[in-house]
């Protein structure tokens, strides 16, 4: 049976419609979880009431000022933070996995997390600010941002002068990671216990600190870098064929790799500087999305972002009601992410990554 052109085109179009549909499902799921999470936290309010408070505020008709204070000023920015972190870190994961053709690559592969943590630790423990004229309240964020970019900047600079293979780039990232971690360990060994607890909570990643004041910079950075990266979607598809063939298709693979890697690092830095290093999402988001929509980046990038957002919203909802005063979201995301990931890998019939 030889299919005719219309049939093949029809199947191709319907396959792509199915991908869009899955991505839309993830978006709807994220939207629902965004509303549900408003009902969870230390302050007691039902999910329905919390959603009512949220829409009351949007319509400018605040009927319950006390609830509004908790829901609008604490939970809404926190939920937005979860949305941004999940989406942004998942996109960075997709990019890293493509750039290095390695299913284990994730936003922190190039030493981003260890850099950010070292920067944060310098601020928290030694009270040092590497960026001049930054108010004390922002010095941890500023330090983390600057330090998280050092490993990638280093790799990009070295690759200007020397030909680095993707593998040697990853290894350089790992080397920097160990160097930074050991410096951080030295700082922590000598730290007083109260700042140690702060440093620790920063390390596992938490959305506790996300308030309205940090939402604009996080949002602008994430939307901007995600949009720019999405413009590389087609070229990232070309990257699948391997560096040599990429050249014969008219693209320079090293250029695409370095540019998208730097953009993904900026995307990641703009999130982890505020939230700390939330783990596992950069692996779970892309891999789950891959199972549903395949690896064409035009669909994979948005689907990963939407699934990642939903996942972190769920993890943070659980985090808020765990323990006495809640747990850091990073702990929960890894705790549910790990088994979920294993279950997916075992259940999966075909190897979507190969």
């Amino acid at each position, binding site marked *: *049976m*030889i*299919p005719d*052109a219309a049939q*093949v*085109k029809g*199947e*191709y179009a319907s*396959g792509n419609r199915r991908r869009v549909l899955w991505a839309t499902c993830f978006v709807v799921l994220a939207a629902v979880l965004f509303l549900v999470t408003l009902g969870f936290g230390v302050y007691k309010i039902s999910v329905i009431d919390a959603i009512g408070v949220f829409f009351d505020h949007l319509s400018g008709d605040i009927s319950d000022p006390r609830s509004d204070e908790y829901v609008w000023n604490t939970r809404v920015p926190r939920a937005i933070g979860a949305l941004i972190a999940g989406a942004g870190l998942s996109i960075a994961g997709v990019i890293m996995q493509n750039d290095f053709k390695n299913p284990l690559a994730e936003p922190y592969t190039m030493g981003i997390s260890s850099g950010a943590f070292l920067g944060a630790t310098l601020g928290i423990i030694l009270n040092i600010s590497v960026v001049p004229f930054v108010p004390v309240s922002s010095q941890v964020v500023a330090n983390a941002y600057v330090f998280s970019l050092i490993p990638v900047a280093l790799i990009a600079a070295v690759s200007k002068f020397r030909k680095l293979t993707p593998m040697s780039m990853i290894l350089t990232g790992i080397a920097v990671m160990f160097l930074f971690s050991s410096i951080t360990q030295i700082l922590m060994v000598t730290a007083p216990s109260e700042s140690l607890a702060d440093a620790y909570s920063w390390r596992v990643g938490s959305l506790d600190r996300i308030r309205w004041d940090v939402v604009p910079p996080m949002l602008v950075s994430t939307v901007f870098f995600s949009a720019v990266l999405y413009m590389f979607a*087609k070229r990232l*598809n*070309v990257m*699948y*064929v*391997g560096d*040599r*063939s990429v*050249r*014969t*298709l*008219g*693209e*320079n693979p090293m250029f695409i790799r370095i540019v998208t890697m730097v953009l993904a690092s900026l995307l990641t830095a703009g999130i982890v500087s505020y939230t700390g290093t939330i783990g596992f999402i950069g692996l779970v988001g892309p891999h789950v999305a*891959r199972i549903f929509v*395949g*690896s*064409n980046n035009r669909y994979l990038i948005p689907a990963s972002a939407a699934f990642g957002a939903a996942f972190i919203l769920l993890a943070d909802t659980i985090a808020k009601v765990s323990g006495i005063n809640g747990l850091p979201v990073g702990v929960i995301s890894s705790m549910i992410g790990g088994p979920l990931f294993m279950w997916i890998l075992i259940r999966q019939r*075909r*190897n*979507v*990554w*190969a």
Partner: protein
Amino acid sequence: MELKINNVSFSYSSVPVLHDVSFDISGNELVSILGPNGVGKSTLIHCINKILAPTSGTVLIDGRDVSEIKLKELAKQIGYVPYSANDSFPLSVIDTVMIGRHPHSKWGSLDEDLDIVYETLRMLGISHLAMRAFNELSAGQHQKVMLARGLVQEPEILLLDEPTSNLDVRHQLDVTKMLKRLSREKGILIVMISHDINIAAKYSDKIILMHEGSVYAIGDPNQVITAENLRTVYGVTAEITKDDDAPHVILKDALPMDEELDGTAAKSPA
């Protein structure tokens, strides 16, 4: 399309692979490059399509030095089907072949691109695989998909690195015959690396026989495929008969692999 190789040499760090390769091919032909393992066939192809830059010498297409042509522009002129036994990526066949349209892609070209992809799949007899995952194909299907990707690029010169290495005999004959037909129908110069002397001799318009990093003989299959040439280049004794006016090789024996007798045998392949 004229492809002119002028005194091209290439070394991997200090290991010389190509020495002073020169030849000139043109027209709508199928040209096969033959030679033993490690002789530099793939390296030569990589020097033509700028995957590698020759250590010295120049490659000209229609009189233009490829080192001065941008990758993007070159991609519209030279297509490449790599040796790809292990290549694997998680896309459908149709998306994989669509990547070959990349050098030509512009906004709104999707429908036209899909037509070209479909026609090519159809011609190769694999249109029923369009929606399958590339990873799940057999070696032969895999190779035909790679060939399709090279063809949808609509190049004027198509370079193929052992395009039939994973195919069974029927498909080897079929694909090679098709390459010859395509060279005429699409008006392209097709250059392929081959390991099957008889199939190459049967369908090629021209054969380039390589030996020790250089061109040992180039020309019509009847001139190039001789017992003496095979003895020197491959180290085998053979009897050459005729089949349909093309030379047909009956291999007799391998010459003793004595490094003392043949000082170059120890040369490492690239």
